[in-house]
């Protein structure tokens, strides 16, 4: 159907950078294309890399970055002479923290249930995969019709509760997703 999804499968390439002012950046670094920041593919050119210094070109402007300090997952980066402090997490540690940390923003568990009774004919993704909102996860056959069941959010597939060939009842739990949306 020609839809291109911004997140590819590899959830280990999605990171979350959190500033002390509460601002959150979800940064996906694909293998061979532009980085995806908060769901937008950004046309950022990497023009220089030397030890702890990076330079980027973005929208016609040069950005000089320097890693000032690093303590575990906390990093201070100087951008064009001004320091910004971030704490960094992989998607998995972020979700784990979200589960534990009651005060922090709860990562929703978005459950997908069968909209009608039928049979699972195909499962396209695996547990741990990154999934885009609207991206088909599995195919459910009912009344001789195949229905694609899609993700209702951007996130990572936590659990797939069904197997290929299995028959399901209406409202039966199919897939659990950890949303990465706000």
């Amino acid at each position, binding site marked *: 159907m020609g839809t291109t999804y911004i997140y590819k499968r590899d959830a280990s390439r999605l990171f979350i950078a959190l500033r002390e002012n509460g601002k959150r*950046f979800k940064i996906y670094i694909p*293998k061979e294309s532009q*980085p995806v920041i908060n769901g937008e593919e950004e046309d950022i050119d*990497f023009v220089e890399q030397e030890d702890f210094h990076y330079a*980027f070109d973005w929208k016609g*402007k040069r950005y000089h970055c320097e890693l000032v300090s690093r303590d575990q997952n906390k990093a201070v*980066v100087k951008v*064009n002479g001004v320091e910004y402090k*971030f704490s960094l997490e992989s998607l998995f540690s972020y979700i784990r923290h979200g589960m534990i940390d009651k005060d922090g923003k709860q990562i929703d568990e978005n459950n997908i249930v069968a909209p009608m009774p039928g049979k699972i004919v195909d499962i396209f993704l695996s547990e741990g995969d990154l999934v885009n909102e609207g991206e088909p996860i599995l195919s459910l056959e009912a009344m001789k019709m195949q229905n694609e069941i899609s993700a209702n959010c951007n996130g990572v597939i936590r659990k797939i509760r069904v197997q290929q060939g299995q028959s399901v009842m209406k409202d039966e739990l199919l897939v659990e997703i950890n949303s990465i949306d706000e």
Partner: protein
Amino acid sequence: MKKRLLIANRSEIAIRIIRSAHKLGMLAVVFQSDREPDALYLNYADEIIPARDAGNEKAIFLDAERIVELALEHNIDLIHPGYGFLSENPDFAELCVSNGINFIGPSPELIREMGLKTVAKSMAIKAGLPLVPGSDGAINDAEAAKAYADKIGYPVILKASAGGGGRGMRIVEKPETMERNFKSASEEALAAFDNGDMFIEKYLQNPKHLEFQIIGDKYGNVVHLGERECSLQRKHQKIMEEAPSASVTPEMRKEMGDMAIRFAKAIGYYSAGTIEFIMDEDRSYYFMEMNTRIQVEHPVTEMVTGVDLVDWQIRVALGEELTLKQEDIEIKGWAIECRVNTEDPQNRFSPQTGFIDKIYFPKDKDIRIESGVQTGSVVTPYFDSMIAKIIVHGKDRPDVIKKTLAALYEFNLIGMKTTVPFCRTVLQHPEFIDASYTTRWVDSVYTPEMLENDEDEMIGALAATIMYASEYLQLSSDLPTYKNDSLNVWVLNKRLNY
């Protein structure tokens, strides 16, 4: 034989003076201080005198006797003091003169007189310059102070006659608080200076700082080169300057310029000098003081007039007659200077020291860089934090603001923080753009959060993530499940394309 010019200064101004010395066919001689033995300016000099000042309490640039002693030993003809250090020390000028060395600046007597504010002010009155309304003599009690304040209008400032350094000083907003303030200020003055005499002046709440550049010769010829606005200050230290000023109309420029010339002629001034004014919100202006040295911000005047002030300082000292005519002096376009100080604008401008791992300056025909450092230089705690100046010329004010901002985005220093992001913030602030900013801007408007912007923040997040991710993925590459598709592919692709 070539004349030998000694520069009793360091850093960018030493290099600037060397340039003029060479242009005028002189040998440039500098001191090598043990406090920065590898300083950049040493590379430009024809001769270096080792100062051997490591064990001395004072760096060579502050040691008048030693400077003159070494100058005599090295057959120096002229001494240029630059700015700061001993540049406005009359005893140093006198020591040079009495030892037969040509001091590049006005006469020692004039330096002395202009250094005494009360003397300078009385000379200004004689020349017909306006002064901030205030009591001529001491005010004896709160009642008299109140009567005087009613006459000149509130707010007023009480100052200790013998004072300085802010002691015995009070700003009084309304008559009701006069008595209390007068009493405490007077007591403070008595304790500090053994003299409780007070005087009273009108207090300008939101002043602008304007200054007129003049140059005169030893034959009574004086011209002015227009004004500079230096309202952007922090703790009385200028950070950005511009020429001309948007607050000065052509009529005012003529009036104030004539005043500056009249004053310089009245006191018999020669060499380069600056007459400072303070301007109120209603554009009334008052004489503040005269600076008898070349100033840090002189390049903005040079950029808009095309006159080389340091050349002229030297030529006047040699007894040349001024060939500049007032009617030939034209202000062309607009110039802005940004001082690059190694200070952290995110943390109360605390000074930064260390190695400059890398420094990159913008380059363009309209950009002038005056730098005392290069990649690999050390910023020591012994001297001033100003390491360079970026001066930009444009066809008008909006044009120069735009160009300066672009130039500052090209500047890059790796190793420590500077005031450059601060200058960028200023250039984008509405009060700078509409030129309504005053000397209170840093205290009353500026917050460190203004340095941040969403674009930089996002790119910072990306940079931090890449650094973290490359490590994170490296870690997983050590695991047996590692697939050879490391993150660096994107990075490498990008690098290969450039």
